[in-house]
């Protein structure tokens, strides 16, 4: 039996350094250099005390100038900035969800997009009280898509998915004015509140931040996830590989990057067609390899086992291999740097969404109606680009790890069914997991999410945190770039059970799972909310009583703040490794780290020392256990 070996951050850094040498040869820029140019960062910006919402300023708060021209103090400025930041994230995720609703609306029996999981559609329809009897599945899909789209702008009522919460929680959210109404309304209201001359009361701004976040997590993101499953299939455990070594030198390499699976699903479909493979061979390649970066990668890995080339801060590396024929992007987290970088190589940088248009890219406008043709054109373009490779620049780091991914809530429940005993247990619940937690075999769960951020040594926080958590019998569920960090390190290899504590190790063995479960892209953090709700319902507890916390140690985007707000809004304590530009206000700090508890039972903890961050999470989990007497 071979010993389990992880890929270390040092090894990954060495591989990156080797790629930067290639970059140096062709005069390529890279984030590592740009970070240097941008350092030190603006202190006012970092503390959140710079206000640019009207043209009287910009105003910045200092001890000598404690108020802006309008008279707003640091607390109001930091609060408004925080709310606007959240609104940006909520709008982004939710718009992604809206695109998916639209794709569902375009689904047709003989169209580009089909309903791959009709059972899930029927289940959601039932939840929403939509009549399904005798209805054609596509008619139902269109009806559901329309209802979904209405969630963005409906004049009255709250988000439908709030009914998935344990009893009483929705009512409590309504009472505290945190229950989200129409998604677009919450974004608009946020921007309205943050307008010059509106809210400057930190408490009100934080509450609306939570509500905007909730509109994302229990609205836009959840629809994005649920309808993606309906369209592309609900993920189930599948084996794949992660890190740059998944690219194949002899093949045409197409890298998909971004967030929306509508594009990448089509690319995968065509890249796998005999016609395109034959064409690639004709053009001198051995085949076609599609790999992914960022959350688009998570989407296609979860559903198709498409390998993951890397996460957020590795996006330039795929081009630096010199073996990338095309990097095809949709929306979010795409470095504009890819344009100029691709010009240093033969790589085609293909933008596809009107939402994300960039200089130095080839724009092939992608839409649901013409998806097939668009995808085919892109794959063809990549194949035809193979001959333009410069062999002397090709270097793919020989580095990849095995990973089992695809743990949707449905897949987790099914996995848990596998350890039930038909003589005593019911199936289809999270109870086996609860039994593991109650007995102490597993101490709790941590939802690891979020991005990379150069402020933190890339992937280091994700990986070190997870290692320590699993060694302490805490199961990790991960999504987004955090999940990819885990996969690259080998933590999603089932053999990683060997570095777990005895309890988690035993659970991994019995359930045949890796200790870090890949739950999807960042939109799929909604899956984690559903799981938490199911755990609460199955245990008769409230979500905020569960020994479960969330953690984004290397977060960077507005979306991440929106996520943080809905995780806290859902009742799960959230631990951040990067300060969300609020240190300039003691009141905001107090509200976010303690004040929200009175509304949701949860709050933030910010700790930039990663070692301490882990200990704080373990402590919190043990506190929750003690409170439950388990």
């Amino acid at each position, binding site marked *: 039996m071979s010993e389990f070996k992880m890929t270390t951050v040092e090894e990954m850094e060495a591989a990156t350094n080797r790629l930067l040498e290639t970059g140096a040869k062709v005069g390529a820029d890279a984030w590592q250099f740009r970070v240097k140019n941008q350092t030190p960062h603006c202190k006012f910006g970092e503390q959140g005390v710079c206000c640019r919402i009207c043209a009287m300023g910009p105003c910045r708060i200092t001890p000598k100038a404690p108020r802006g021209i309008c008279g707003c103090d640091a607390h109001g400025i930091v609060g408004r900035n925080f709310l606007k930041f959240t609104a940006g994230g909520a709008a982004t995720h939710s718009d992604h969800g809206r695109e998916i609703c639209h794709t569902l609306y375009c689904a047709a029996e003989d169209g580009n997009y089909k309903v791959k999981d009709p059972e899930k559609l029927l289940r959601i329809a039932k939840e929403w009280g939509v009549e399904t009897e005798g209805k054609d599945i596509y008619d139902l899909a269109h009806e559901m898509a329309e209802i979904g789209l209405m969630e963005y702008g409906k004049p009255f009522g709250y988000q439908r998915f709030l009914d998935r919460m344990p009893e009483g929680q929705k009512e409590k959210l309504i009472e505290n004015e945190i229950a989200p109404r129409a998604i677009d309304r919450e974004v608009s209201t946020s921007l309205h509140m943050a307008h010059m001359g509106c809210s400057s009361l930190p408490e009100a701004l934080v509450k609306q931040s939570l509500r905007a976040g909730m509109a994302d997590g229990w609205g836009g993101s959840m629809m994005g996830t649920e309808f993606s499953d309906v369209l592309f299939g609900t993920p189930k455990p599948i084996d794949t590989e992660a890190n740059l070594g998944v690219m194949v030198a002899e093949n045409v390499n197409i890298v998909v990057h971004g967030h929306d699976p509508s594009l990448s699903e089509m690319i995968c479909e065509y890249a796998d067609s005999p016609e395109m493979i034959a064409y690639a061979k004709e053009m001198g390649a051995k085949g076609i390899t599609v790999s992914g970066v960022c959350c688009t990668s998570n989407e296609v890995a979860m559903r198709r086992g498409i390998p993951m080339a890397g996460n957020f801060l590795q996006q330039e590396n795929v081009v630096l291999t010199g073996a990338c024929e095309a990097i095809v992007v949709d929306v979010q987290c795409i470095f504009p740097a890819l344009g100029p970088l691709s010009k240093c190589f033969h790589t085609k940088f293909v933008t596809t969404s009107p939402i994300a248009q960039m200089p130095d890219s080839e724009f092939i406008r992608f839409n649901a109606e013409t998806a097939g043709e668009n995808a085919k054109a892109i794959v063809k373009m990549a194949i035809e680009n193979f001959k333009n490779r410069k062999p002397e620049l090709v270097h793919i780091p020989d580095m990849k790890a095995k990973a089992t991914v695809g743990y949707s809530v449905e897949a987790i429940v099914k996995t848990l069914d596998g350890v039930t005993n038909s*003589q005593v247990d019911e199936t289809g619940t999270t109870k086996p997991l609860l039994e593991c937690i109650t007995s102490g075999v597993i101490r709790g769960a941590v939802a690891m999410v979020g991005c990379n951020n150069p402020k933190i040594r890339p992937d280091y926080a994700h990986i070190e945190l997870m290692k320590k958590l699993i060694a302490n019998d805490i199961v990790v569920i991960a999504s987004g770039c955090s999940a990819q960090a885990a996969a690259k390190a080998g933590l999603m290899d089932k053999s990683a059970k060997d570095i777990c504590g005895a*309890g988690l190790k035993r659970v991994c063995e019995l359930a045949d799972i890796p200790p870090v479960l890949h739950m999807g892209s960042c939109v799929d953090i909604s899956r984690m909310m559903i799981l938490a709700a199911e755990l609460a319902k199955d245990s008769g507890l409230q979500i905020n009583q569960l020994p479960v916390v969330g953690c984004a140690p290397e977060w960077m985007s507005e979306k991440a703040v929106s996520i943080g707000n809905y995780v806290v809004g859902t009742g799960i304590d959230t631990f951040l490794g990067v300060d969300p530009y609020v240190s300039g206000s003691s009141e905001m700090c107090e509200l976010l780290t303690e004040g929200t508890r009175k509304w949701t039972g949860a709050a933030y903890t910010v700790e930039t020392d990663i070692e301490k961050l882990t200990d704080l999470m373990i402590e919190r989990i043990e506190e929750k256990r003690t409170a439950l007497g388990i």
Partner: protein
Amino acid sequence: MTLFERVFNGNDAVYGLTEQAIDAAIAQHGEEKAVSFPNTAYCLPCYYAVTGVKVTNLKELKEALGVVKTLMTREPRLNDAFMSGVATALCAEFIEALKYIDGATPYEEPLYGHLADAVIRELGVPLVTGDIPGVAVILGSAPTVEEGVALVKSYQAQGILVTLVGGICDQVAEAGMATGANVRVIPLGKDVTAVIHVVSVALRAALIFGNVTPGDAKTLMEYTMQRVPAFVNAFAPLDDVIVACGAGAIALGFPVITNETENIARVPKSLIVQEDVSKFNATSLEARDIKIKITNIDIPVAFASAFEGEIIRRGDMQVEFDGSRVDCAELVHTVDASEIEDHKITVVGPEVDDMELGSKNSIAYVVKVAGKNMQPDFEPVIERKFHNYINCIEGVYHTGQRDMQRIRISKNAFAAGFRLKHIGEVLYASVKNEFEAVVDKCEVIIYTDPAECTRIRHEVAIPTFNKRDDRLNNLTDESVDVYYSCILCQAFSPSHVCVVTPERLGLCGAVSWLDAKATNELDPNGPCQVITKERPIDERIGEYEDVNEAVKRLSQGALEDVSLYSIMEKPMTSCGCFECICGIEPFSNGVCIANREYAGMTPLGMTFPELASMTGGGVQTPGFMGHGKHFIASKKFMKAEGGIERIVWMPKELKEFVADRLNQTAKELYGIDNFTDMIGDETVATDPETLVEFLTEKGHPALGMDPMM
């Protein structure tokens, strides 16, 4: 209180008792007093397996307790609970060991207490073949005697080995249930600490079959979890001590099923609360992923491998059939499919009802088979299973084979409605079930009419046997094109591979070349695969390139090369369930052989368990070799070192068993008459000096041979 706290409390309590017991023993006997269990080569087996340290006296035992204390950490993590469970088990072993001081016999029938190494080695084959599909450990008192007995019987009927600890021992005794290793129900003892005797079996299995290095606790626990299909049924009430023992069991991978509902946590597949005792069986099997091979046979008594060892005494016997006194025979006969009516069972002659109570009668049963893939070579393979099939019938007993079989039917079985036609049912169902790949149709005719039996025996059976013997005599390693691998034991001994040749059967004694051939025919991807022998490297020791390649592949690279005929150079490995072990005896240039049943000392200064502990686990140990009894008379027996001439000592019983064939081989090879008379046994010598005197007196040829080392 949390589950872990209960484990810690229970562990602390047992530790305290152990410390007191050891101190008291030291005060009474002094530190140098020897401590051991009988009939084991592994000292205090659990402590030895976990730590790699052999405890031999009270002083060392006290030191060992200090080591146990280091396991008892108290963080709220499963590892701490597991280690405290293991610590509890080790304490139990210490307490039990103290009971055996001065050769005391703390357990009287029907209680067993410590189980000998030989018992474990015997369990090896049935465990890997699934004849024993699992091991149940039942702890405490069932809510009622009836429920307890019903549970034990339910496992017994599935062939599961049942061990009993605590009140259940009295409950089965009260119900008058027959217990013992032969019926696979073993009451260990009434104290909870007696549970260690079954843990000891599991851990010794890891050392014997798994080649686990003593002290490698991690590998040890992986072995028990993956390969020992044991589980625990613990009756309410569970006190902290039992909960702590349970943690130890779960650490080893054995789930605990209990009807306790108060203050108990549930853990999937590990700690399961089943309030309904009548569902313990189903719950346990599912928890341990044990699949029972279902052979539904329509007979009025039970049919299970647990009854294989059952003995029917004369007083309990309704009738018997005895081939040594009257004409009997058992025969598989291949015929054309058109000559068979499938599932037809005919009795020609009187039924048991017409026979006098206690009478001796004739019987001959002919099982006619047909099938596209059937070969006459498979006839004896199927026929040899009859012993096993008939013995699995509750209340029926079978020994011998061919025309020398003896069958007894008990009064109870007869009273339950068992008749001879049911033997036909059993033979039909079992043959069809086990040999479905070669037997398409099957019909059974049972003759009890004495004249018919005489006819069948002399006109049909004996000529067939003679023909087969001629064929077998012509079957030599040289006369066949291929050998077979047997990796049946890999479930238990992951790197062991047997190479089965016509003149060298599997070391367990259960797989001959023909068996392997049939097994391969039944399942070409199964445990027996064809090994070619086209590229010899060294004919003297029987080494072939293709055999080496196969062995390397089948052992997953653990074995590089192997010889078929040498015990000194690249000898074949052992899994651990060998019938015999031979080891070199340097004073006489010969080898001594001991069989598993032999409990005494050998001239090598070691008992069978001690000898056996030197090999096994799939590793090569030059100078020692496990093998089957029938290999002893083979012309290929350590041929490279000179062959059977090297045999200088065997237990008397074994010597008698192999005498005829061994003498014949010696005559053929060396022209020596009555060679077995030259071989020593325990009545002659159990030390090398006396043995050499005896050999010199007899002029044993080994003395004049070259030294083996």
